[in-house]
């Protein structure tokens, strides 16, 4: 594969991960809210630590990966989460 093709494939995968994360989160929130890569998961969405872990569990199921708790703890924004999940998905 050319470098460009690899990059395109990675972008596709990032988009897929992003769609899954945003979709899962929208479904979990009591009301629809605008979400972006900059949305801070705890401060902006008012989720507590357990709610965040529960929401990550949904994503783990959908992508067949396990996200270690220390990686979840490092995540602040949805963009961080997409990047973390993306890395784990690639390593899996």
């Amino acid at each position, binding site marked *: 594969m050319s470098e460009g093709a690899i990059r395109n494939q990675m972008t596709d995968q990032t988009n897929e991960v992003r769609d899954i994360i945003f979709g899962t989160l929208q479904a979990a929130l009591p009301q629809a809210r605008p979400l972006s890569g900059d949305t801070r998961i705890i401060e902006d969405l008012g989720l*507590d*630590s*357990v*709610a965040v*872990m*529960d929401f990550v*569990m949904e994503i783990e199921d959908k992508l*067949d*990966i*396990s*996200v*270690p*708790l*220390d990686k979840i703890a490092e995540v602040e924004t949805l963009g961080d989460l997409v990047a973390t999940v993306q890395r784990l998905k690639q390593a*899996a």
Partner: protein
Amino acid sequence: MPVLDKYAALAAQYRQLEEAGANPFNVKFDEVLSPTEAMIGGRKTLLLGTNNYLGLTYDPAVVEAANAATSASGSGTTGSRIANGSYGGHARLEAALADFYGRRLGMVFSTGYQANLGIISALAGKGDHLLLDADSHASIYDGSRLGYAQVTRFRHNSPDDLATRLRRLKDEPGEKIVIVEGIYSMLGDTAPLKEFAAVKREYGACLVVDEAHSLGVLGETGRGLAEQAGVEADCDFIVGTFSKSLAGVGGFAVTDMEGAEILRVVSRPYMFTASLPPANIAATEAALQQLRARPDLRRRLNENALRLYRGLERLGFELGPEPSPVVSAIMPTPEAAFGLWAALLKAGLYTNVSLPPATPRGLALLRSSVSAAHSPAQIDHAIALFAETGKGLGLANAAPALAAAK
């Protein structure tokens, strides 16, 4: 200094509870009268939230053992087992626990919290993998942060999800350590331990079971869920506490694992804290003797548990999934939990409020725990108070509405 500013929102909520004169997180007992009664705010109050499962806190043999030990060996040990030496009582209690469980090694910690910290952090080292039930107690989560293993959580009580996660780790180096509880402290549900044991065997993982709320409650001889489920041989470590059925303070672990003595010099929460004082050690040993000699306590406890569970169920409260000495009513909101809690206390009944993130799935709980020391009449009285106050607040008979709202 702004160091506490991060707690501003929480502090405001806490202040509100204080100002309302009903803060479930700051209750003062003027005087404790017995395992089931205390004076609170000048009123004689029925205790239904003290985890005093076998009601042994005032047992004459237990109290006498504590008094005698203080007279003989003094008030405190003034140091740790490692640096300052063990007393005879420590070794005796460890032997008594090992004998009770039929295991080679017993190890005593200064609290149940520290037993989890000490066992989990020592077993799960760098490069290992720790798998926790999602509803694990705070001490298990904290223990997982004290060690250097990679930590993931599996769905509560789901052997399938545990298997999925172990499968993902199949080709990874490092030991796999799995932690579950006997009875879960928030909703009183038990783990499907037989199924967990099968998964553990399939993947060659190490299984740790925290029997904090099931010691003295479950099993033919009171050893807990592992005994009841018939899978003790698969449970590599049992962890537990002295602070519930054993009516004292402290924690323990028992195991048959070869070489486990080494934990005494690698487990930091065991090493770097003062050992339990003689009175506490002697009282715990006496309580363990009572637990073993009096199976009727366990029978009475479970009868009381069932009586309360069925009673609250009849009132229409939505409860945890199965009867156990922990009986939690699921409230629609934290405010409803505070309201019912305060009304019950005013009526002379002490219970607990449990809120997220300590509870699973964001639930607000009005939590009760029963004791073998409760008389059936006391349980019935408690149910009557739930009926009166719950109806007044529109909470009794709310379960169908709750279910419909979901």
